């Protein structure tokens, strides 16, 4: 039934199906063939591997892997939401649910897998889910709203992800795994134990070695719990089955194609089905020639390439793939590569295990020293390098590769030591040589460019770090000077600009740009990177260089990031949040009442922040002055929640009340917060003071943290919470009040002087040559002889501090900006609206939905310049 142009029909538009289409296009087959795609899901192909990131804020649109322009350009007929229902191999037609019948010359099955649900009673009850598609996630999210507990059946890779997602949705989460350890396929007993400890510490409950016998339902038919094989019962509102996947081969079975004993459409090394040369199968639905069904995306991609090459009459084959994986599960790195379980004859293990900190690393080494494989739990930094060395004898001893830095021999084996054919990106099968060529021949200089050029790093992302290292190494090797300049406007670093501003007493951005900017940028307007950076430098040095001390003074106002410009934090719907300073977290009842009254009178949403103070959300820009007039009147000051400046100094209750306290931690926290309030810095600054070693204020997670001792104070620096937590390092011990403050003055000013933009003290400390020892030399032992200057700079800041908001509400010129519209100052922005939630209100988000406008659509009223 084929027409003039031969037709390729693809059934299944998942990750592998999409890659197959790209491979067709690359080989020019979309020009010579009609390509029809039947896609069962209501949306075109998306990144299933990153599915869980939906719960951390990625939208289904972000996950999409399908560029509508690509489909259109290549004339691909994509039928979304229309699955294939039958195949007639004799007539060579496919019939879809909509009744559409398409004839084919080549049929490609890429139908993926379905989640296996064990046949336990009530498995289909309301509240039972699987975890495979965006629709599954939406359903789980919806149901979780009325649930408090969730259980995941299966402690494998997907089960852990699902459990993490449930936890993220605020449920108490359980994992039930039949095997005696978690992730039985990927890790061994030791790795499972390290993983278990870390996961339990996160508050998930793990039940290993037990099976699920029955789902218990209530009178309404909804899940209330589950019976386990050890006789116990677990009560839960929601169950997610994640007990493995099975190939979706029903369509193939129905039309008489050969399937394996345990499922999977049998194909040869060209991915052609063994029963019919016109039909191919690729991805998770295929039983490869080596007798395995691959449940990972990388082998599927290779199969997609193989099938496309074969159709183009090129030579290609898929004979098997390695099952290396690196994942971040619930924030824990887990990786396994090569012969992870040591099945090769005569091999030896090198193991480093520290269950206290959840670390487990094992390398499998052959008799001759060849690295055969390994498992990494808790720290998989070395994964990229180790995997690439698999199959060869590494140039250093294997022990040194698994020992943590600082223990014995910390060997940093950089990716430059790798051979050219080492695979750097296993998802996309990109060799080191290809990446080097991207730099040397295709003139790529950044990670995004190399990603675009080679596809490396575009799938799971685990190789991106190594990519960056390779690119820089290659650039440096080829003599290209890596531009360390701040942005396209300045060739200097932030540190250099600081020195220029200080030495030449430059108080204006334009001056700095016109005299010291890059040639092409002079006379221009700067950019969103350098303006706030220079604004912050000028603000940090204002009293010393003679600039206006208010961040909204004159030209300074135009430099500030938008939050600083309105002295409040912009929220997603264009409203603002208001955070008054509550030094040390100590607040008198009268002031609490004032905050309550203001929030009530202006209809604001209130929340206790993670920084021991109160945030009021939902203020319209034009309300900010009246809100602050009342706050200032009641004795409040700006909390600088919007600034790259001191945020909070948290405190514990300390000696005054606590039976263990040895110093007055609340007083010290208040003193520190008042001393450093308003100090502009390269990034935000946080601090805390604990009254004893029990550390209730979490001072060791702060930029500068203070812990009381019987003899005074210990000062810790360089701590960080956030995305990459770091424990602070002890800088000095048993300090008196005056010594403590002097050291902090110097430390902060040295940081402000030398750090890069948006570099917290933690990253700064790790980056600067000499690290902590150097900083200690400078600020404790005054090795550079600059401590007097550092102290003087801080003294000037402290002496000139004035509350930004108090000044603003008394200055008509500064107030003029707080209007909704320049031509209708009192008309509220119609997009800022709220709906009720839990006795308060939240932004009316649907109101924000305007959809993206395509670039080529010329809109009514648009200028034709």
């Amino acid at each position, binding site marked *: 039934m084929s027409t003039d142009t031969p037709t390729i029909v693809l059934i299944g538009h998942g990750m592998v199906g999409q890659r197959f289409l790209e491979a067709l296009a690359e080989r020019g087959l979309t020009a010579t063939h009609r390509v029809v795609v039947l896609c069962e899901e209501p949306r075109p192909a998306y990144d299933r591997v990153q599915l869980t990131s939906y719960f951390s804020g990625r939208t289904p649109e972000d996950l999409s892997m399908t560029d509508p322009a690509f489909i259109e350009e290549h004339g691909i007929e994509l039928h979304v939401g229309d699955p294939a229902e039958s195949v007639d191999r004799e007539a060579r037609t496919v019939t879809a649910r909509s009744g559409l019948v398409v004839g084919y010359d080549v049929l490609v099955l890429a139908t993926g897998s379905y989640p296996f649900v064990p046949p336990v009673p009530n498995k289909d009850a309301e509240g039972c889910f699987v975890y495979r598609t965006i629709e599954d996630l939406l359903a789980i999210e919806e149901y979780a709203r009325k649930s408090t507990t969730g259980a995941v059946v299966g402690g494998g890779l997907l089960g852990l992800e699902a459990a993490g997602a449930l936890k993220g949705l605020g449920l108490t989460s359980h994992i039930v795994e039949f095997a005696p350890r978690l992730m039985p396929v990927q890790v061994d007993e030791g790795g499972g134990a390290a993983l278990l400890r870390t996961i339990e510490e996160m508050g998930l409950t793990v039940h290993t070695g037990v099976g699920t016998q029955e789902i218990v339902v209530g009178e309404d038919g909804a899940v209330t719990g589950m019976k386990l094989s050890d006789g116990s019962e677990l009560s839960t509102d929601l169950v997610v089955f994640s007990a493995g996947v099975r190939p979706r081969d029903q369509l193939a079975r129905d039309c008489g194609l050969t399937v394996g004993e345990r499922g999977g459409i049998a194909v040869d090394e060209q991915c052609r089905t063994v029963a019919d040369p016109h039909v191919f199968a690729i991805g998770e639905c295929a039983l490869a020639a080596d007798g395995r069904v691959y449940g990972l995306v990388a082998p599927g991609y290779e199969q997609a390439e193989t099938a496309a090459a074969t159709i183009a009459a090129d030579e290609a084959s898929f004979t098997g793939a390695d099952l290396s994986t690196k994942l971040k599960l619930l924030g824990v790195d887990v990786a396994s590569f090569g012969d992870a379980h040591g099945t090769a004859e005569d091999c030896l293990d090198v193991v480093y295990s520290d269950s206290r900190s959840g670390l487990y690393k094992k390398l499998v080494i052959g008799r001759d020293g060849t690295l055969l494989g390994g498992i990494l739990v808790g720290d998989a930094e070395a994964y990229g390098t180790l995997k690439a060395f698999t199959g060869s004898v590494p140039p250093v001893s294997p022990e040194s590769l698994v020992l943590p830095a600082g223990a014995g021999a910390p060997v940093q084996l950089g990716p430059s030591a790798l051979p050219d054919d080492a695979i750097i990106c296993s998802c996309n099968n990109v060799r080191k040589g290809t990446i080097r060529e991207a730099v040397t021949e295709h003139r790529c200089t950044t990670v995004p460019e190399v990603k675009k050029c080679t596809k490396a790093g575009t799938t799971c992302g685990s190789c991106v770090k190594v990519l960056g290292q390779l690119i820089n190494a290659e650039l440096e090797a080829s003599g290209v000077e890596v531009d360390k300049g701040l942005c396209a406007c300045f060739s200097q670093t932030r540190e250099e600009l600081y020195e220029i501003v200080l030495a030449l007493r430059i108080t204006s951005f334009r001056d700095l740009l016109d005299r010291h900017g890059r040639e092409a940028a002079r006379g221009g307007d700067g950019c969103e990177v350098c303006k706030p950076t220079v604004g912050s430098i000028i603000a940090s040095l204002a009293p010393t260089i003679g600039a206006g001390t208010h961040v909204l003074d004159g030209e300074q106002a135009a430099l500030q990031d938008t939050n600083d410009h309105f002295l409040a934090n912009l929220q997603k719907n264009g409203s603002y949040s208001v955070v008054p300073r509550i030094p040390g977290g100590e607040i008198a009842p009268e002031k609490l009442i004032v905050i309550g009254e203001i929030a009530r009178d202006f209809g604001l949403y209130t929340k206790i922040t993670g920084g021991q103070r109160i945030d009021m959300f939902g203020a319209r820009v034009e309300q900010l002055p009246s809100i602050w007039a009342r706050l200032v009147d009641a004795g409040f000051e700006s909390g600088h929640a919007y600034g790259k400046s001191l945020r909070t100094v948290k405190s514990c209750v300390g000696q005054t009340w606590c039976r263990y306290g040895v110093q007055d931690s609340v007083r010290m926290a208040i003193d520190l917060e008042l001393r450093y309030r308003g100090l502009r810095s390269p990034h935000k600054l946080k601090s805390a003071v604990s009254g004893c070693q029990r550390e209730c204020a979490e001072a060791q997670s702060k930029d500068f943290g203070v812990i009381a001792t019987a003899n005074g104070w210990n000062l810790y620096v360089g701590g960080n919470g956030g995305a990459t937590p770091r424990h602070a390092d002890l800088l000095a011990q048993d300090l008196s009040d005056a010594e403590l403050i002097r050291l902090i003055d110097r430390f902060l000013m040295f940081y402000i002087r030398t750090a890069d933009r948006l570099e917290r003290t933690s990253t700064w400390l790790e980056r600067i040559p000499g690290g902590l020892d150097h900083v200690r030399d400078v600020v404790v032992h005054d090795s550079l002889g600059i401590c007097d200057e550092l102290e003087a700079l801080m003294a000037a800041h402290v002496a000139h501090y004035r509350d930004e908001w108090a000044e603003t509400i008394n200055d008509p010129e500064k107030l003029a900006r707080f209007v909704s519209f*320049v031509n209708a100052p009192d008309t509220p922005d119609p*997009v800022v609206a709220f709906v009720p939630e839990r006795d308060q209100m939240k932004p009316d988000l649907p109101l924000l939905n305007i959809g993206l406008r395509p670039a080529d659509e010329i809109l009514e009223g648009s200028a034709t310049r």
Partner: protein
Amino acid sequence: MTLTLETTDLKVRLRLADDWFTVCDLSVLLPGRGVAALLPDGRQAAVFADRNGRLYAIDNRDPFTGAAVLSRGLTGTHQGRPFVASPLLKQRFDLESGQCLDDETVRVTAYEVKAA
């Protein structure tokens, strides 16, 4: 709508179909910083002046988030062309054409604007 226009100063005017719509006094615009204006049909424009006094106006709604905030973004020059970076997720928009510089498939309306 309260129109606060009493001075005889130069006015910033936007081209809407065939009419020029008066937005504000020119002196109100701070170089490098925007203001929002409400248009008669309920739409919003973000109006900017650069350091050389050139004027620009684009739709105020950030197409990536839906919030009407582009007037509050930071402006700059990129390869000689003026842009504003959304204060929410930082995508940059060319001030002359409305074209998003970080996603070629997206653009916002650009208005013709003059001081008269």
